[in-house]
């Protein structure tokens, strides 16, 4: 498959999969591409003889041939880049500084923060060693990332502060640059912590699920009361204190709020502009998303895309992570293959210092890869290599999928959870992914038409 074409919101769109070129076409070109394969002009003329005038068909064919010669249509298959075969370098770590949490979120994969184990706090030494693990394994690469994660990382600010200071010192000594992020439910923030996080340039991922009733249903406190008011209060304070920069407000939707567009808009209406709301992952639960929910969810993405566009054009827009698509300066092929990098470029570190392919794999014993004191175990190298090779050009489903270079192969943890192997993607996730991408491409098309002062190409 070399092209993906679809009609959405009044525009006909063609994506040339292997080049990444995006075309807005009219109805006749859209139809022609049902038959045209890059060379069979006569077949096209014959197929549409009764439907469109020959002069128009010839014009379309001329334009299509011009695009082919520019490499923007029917571009050849993309090969695995030579830069990809070399040994992977570690580029980011997720530090589970606290396997404990003050909330009891219904969908938490960490099982109320303890990942099915003892509630534990990461000692400072483990944090230091994690920083050294990146330095030792990142080769010439300058930029790397550390995410303070949990459970709830604010339960262990002592280690957070220590690691921040340590990492900043090691930056000066080694020339490395650490981008620091902290993911929090917001309820334990204080004025002092807010100030500290701002001063140290730590990006924040703040969790909120949209409308109060939706949030409180899935994100209760330990005593069963809702956490929305507390979370919202502190999140507002934090975002104001950093002047609306350097944060993401993120939520999760479940089968309980299939009308999740309303939750995204509730967050936008609170004045937040950096938003991300994503499908929950759950298996054998009441809240899990199933194939039967897909039509409703597709409609939600379409509605959300329309509102997103309307607000952008009216000058009061917000960013929704999955719709922010950069079609001009997107990542290179190597990045599109490595995707999240779990298990070869990205690892999670438990409070005890154990290494796992990512935060979702923590506690799945067969996936333990080593620890920060002694490094990745030699015996586990084949597993690391499996993660590295589980990319879109190697997985049968992905190889056939039009979204392969945007999606980068989905989440390994979900694939493993639902299909027992990292080589077969989680299907409901794929369907949602593709819908989001169509919406994102439509938004790009509409924005550029609006810029050019055109309303669309209907006919």
């Amino acid at each position, binding site marked *: 498959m070399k092209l993906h074409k679809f009609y959405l919101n009044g525009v006909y769109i063609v994506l040339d999969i292997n*080049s*990444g*070129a995006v*075309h*807005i*076409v*009219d109805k*006749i*070109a859209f139809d022609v591409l049902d038959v045209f394969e890059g060379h069979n002009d006569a077949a096209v003329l014959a197929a549409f003889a009764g439907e469109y005038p020959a002069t128009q068909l010839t014009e*379309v064919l001329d*334009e*299509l041939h011009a*695009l082919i010669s520019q490499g*923007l249509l029917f*571009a050849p298959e993309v*090969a695995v*880049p*030579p*830069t*990809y075969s070399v040994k992977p370098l570690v*580029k980011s770590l997720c530090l589970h500084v606290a396997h404990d949490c003050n909330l009891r979120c219904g969908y938490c*994969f960490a099982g109320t923060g303890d990942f099915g184990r003892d509630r534990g706090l990461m000692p400072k030494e483990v944090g230091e060693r994690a920083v050294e693990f990146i330095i030792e394994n990142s080769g010439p*690469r300058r*930029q790397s990332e550390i995410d303070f994660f949990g459970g709830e990382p604010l339960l262990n600010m002592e280690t957070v502060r220590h690691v921040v200071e340590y990492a900043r010192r090691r930056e000066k000594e080694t020339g490395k640059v650490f*981008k620091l992020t902290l993911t929090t439910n917001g309820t334990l923030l204080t004025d002092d912590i807010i100030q500290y996080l701002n001063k140290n340039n730590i990006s924040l*991922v703040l969790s909120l699920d949209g409308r109060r009733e939706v949030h409180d249903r899935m994100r209760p406190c330990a005593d069963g009361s809702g956490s929305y008011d507390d979370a919202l209060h502190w999140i507002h304070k934090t975002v104001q204190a950093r002047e609306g920069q350097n944060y993401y407000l*993120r939520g*999760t939707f479940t089968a309980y709020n299939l009308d999740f567009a309303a939750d995204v808009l509730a967050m936008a209406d609170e004045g937040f502009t950096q938003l*991300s709301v*994503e499908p*929950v*992952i759950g298996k054998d639960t009441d809240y899990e998303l199933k194939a039967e929910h897909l039509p409703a969810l597709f409609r939600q993405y379409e509605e959300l895309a329309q509102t997103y566009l309307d607000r952008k054009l009216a000058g009061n827009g917000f960013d929704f*992570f999955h*719709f922010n*698509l*950069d*079609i*001009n*300066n*997107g*990542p*290179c*092929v*190597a*990045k599109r293959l490595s995707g*999240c990098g*779990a298990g070869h*470029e990205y690892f999670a570190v438990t409070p005890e210092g154990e290494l796992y392919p*990512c*935060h979702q794999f923590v506690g799945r014993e067969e996936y333990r890869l080593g620890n920060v004191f002694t490094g990745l175990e030699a015996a586990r190298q084949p597993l690391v290599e499996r993660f590295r090779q589980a990319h879109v050009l190697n997985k049968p489903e992905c190889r056939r999928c039009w979204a392969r*270079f*945007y*999606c*980068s192969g*989905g*989440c390994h*943890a979900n694939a493993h959870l639902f299909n027992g192997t990292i080589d077969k993607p989680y299907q409901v996730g794929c369907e949602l992914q593709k819908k989001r991408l169509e919406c994102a491409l439509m938004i790009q098309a509409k924005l*550029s038409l609006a810029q*050019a002062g055109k309303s669309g*190409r209907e006919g």
Partner: protein
Amino acid sequence: MAKHIITLNTASLQKTIHIGGCGECQTSCQSACKTSCTVGNQVCQK
């Protein structure tokens, strides 16, 4: 001027097969619990 087709971008993925892979860009998790981003919406740091 094309009458039937408007091309929005001329960036070519193929051109990045031999360059790229520097890995200086941000990590992109795709699951619900993180700053999940599909790679398509990442920006190259070069």
